[in-house]
């Protein structure tokens, strides 16, 4: 059910990963994503797997919890894999009805699947180990140079953290309105796509009305608590680098170096 969505949810635990500075985690996630798309050979993927596994173990987040984020994209994954298998040109291994299954296809499908799964695992790991507020603080601070070119970094960060706070509430609300309309005989499942879209009106209108009402209430509550933008604001938890963060940066550099070296070595061998 809708309740099971884990993306953007924080998993409280006392681990080395949890206590890292969000800026470290943001940069690490970025480096990790780039590394995923740099490599496509077995050794590199193995290296990345080991690194990922080490981080997961250190984070103390249960493995099943991380993998739950995959549920929502499983269909997408299968589709993408199928496209890769059937539509990649190369040496055909066998043929199913006019479609050639190629060696290259299987390889690229496998690499693609691993990339996607690792991507989800890595990014969920970041959100699971970082409170939304720390995450937006990290973004705000990392992007603060953009302030100079008039990008409203503080406002964007604030909007993100509020959005994250309200996602579970709006999901619950969707569930409730859906049930209420079903009790009045609404049908959200059957019919053609157009009919289905039309049937969503009794769900979407109340949902939007409610979201606007909430936004209005919240804006007022923020004002009442003296919110007046980022100017002159202090922080309860200002971002300060600790010893662990330096270690993490070193490890991150080592990881990046490792990926590059393996890449160069395997390229030269093959």
């Amino acid at each position, binding site marked *: 059910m809708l309740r*099971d969505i884990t993306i953007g949810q924080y998993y409280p635990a006392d681990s080395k990963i949890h206590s890292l500075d969000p800026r470290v985690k943001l940069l690490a996630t970025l480096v990790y994503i780039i590394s995923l798309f740099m490599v496509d050979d077995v050794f590199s993927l193995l290296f990345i797997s080991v690194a990922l596994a080490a981080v997961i173990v250190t984070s103390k987040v249960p493995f099943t919890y991380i993998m739950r984020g995959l549920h929502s994209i499983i269909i997408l994954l299968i589709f993408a894999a199928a496209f890769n298998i059937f539509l990649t040109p190369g040496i055909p291994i066998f043929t199913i009805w006019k479609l050639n299954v190629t060696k290259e296809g299987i390889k690229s499908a496998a690499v693609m699947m691993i990339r996607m799964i690792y991507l989800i695992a890595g990014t969920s790991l970041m959100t699971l180990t970082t409170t939304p507020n720390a995450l937006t603080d990290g973004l705000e601070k990392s992007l603060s140079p953009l302030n100079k070119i008039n990008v409203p970094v503080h406002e964007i960060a604030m909007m993100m953290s509020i959005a994250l706070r309200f996602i579970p509430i709006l999901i619950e609300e969707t569930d409730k309105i859906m*049930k209420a309309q*079903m009790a*009045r*005989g609404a049908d959200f499942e059957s019919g053609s796509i157009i009919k289905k879209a039309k049937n969503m*009106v009794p769900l979407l209108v*109340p949902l939007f009305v409610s979201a606007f009402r909430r936004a209005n209430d919240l804006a007022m509550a923020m004002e009442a608590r003296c919110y007046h933008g980022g100017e002159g604001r202090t922080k309860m938890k200002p971002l300060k680098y600790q010893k662990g963060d330096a270690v993490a940066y070193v490890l991150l550099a080592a990881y990046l170096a490792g990926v590059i070296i393996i890449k160069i070595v395997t390229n030269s061998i093959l």
Partner: protein
Amino acid sequence: MPIILDHVTYKYSTGTAYEKTALSDVCLTIPDGQFIGIIGHTGSGKSTLVQHLNGLLKATEGTIYYNGKDIYDKTFDMKDLRTQVGMVFQYPEHQLFETTVFEDVSFGPKNQGLPKKDVDLRAYEALSSVGIPQEVCDSSPFELSGGQKRRVAIAGVLAMKPAVLILDEPTAGLDPKGRDEILDLIQETHRRSGNTVILVSHSMEDVASYVDRIIVMDGGKVKYDDTPKEVFKSYKELEEIGLAAPQVTYLMKELKEAGWPVKSSVTTVSEARDEIIKALKK
């Protein structure tokens, strides 16, 4: 058409750290034409219970018979059940969506597949039964006052002419007058049509003067199931589970303890008044 709950248990988030038993082994019989109050504090399982009655939630264990038929049977028509068992959710005004009040109230009967003439007729009937004036029918439901919105939302369910009407906290957030108006109109429709009404509430005082029977829920179990008088006799136990009997019940108990010749099982102001007058005349 009675509803029978046979050992109903409901668990959610099964298999995760948040697994919770919301209902455990609930057995109930709801005969035709009763006015029932289901009471319990937040998290007692009362809202979960009523969502089973029209099939919005499916019991993890046990089954429910509507009109003698198992509602979890494959051949059972769930859509038909939902038109027979009408449900007004908490803050029902949040589900309004149409451009006019009239259209919104027509949504239910339209889904029932009724011809346009009948749909219109039912919508008018329902709107007049909740006291919404004709001239408001063509305005947008979003322009109405809070109390009016609530009544329009209730009309939206009444228009489906359910044999069983369930209302989950229909008076939440209303002022005393608004609360009385809603409860009075529910009682009025009950009297007129003889339908079964199930009122979910956490307010004892609201419920006591209206219902024939009170079901007290606590920790997903049925704790008491009897007439208001009988249930309020256990006011001490009710207090322990976060509920309280009406103030007048306490008063009459205290008067009796002080040696007054009064009945202590009193639940409404007018009963209390009559008892005290009677005692003084003795």
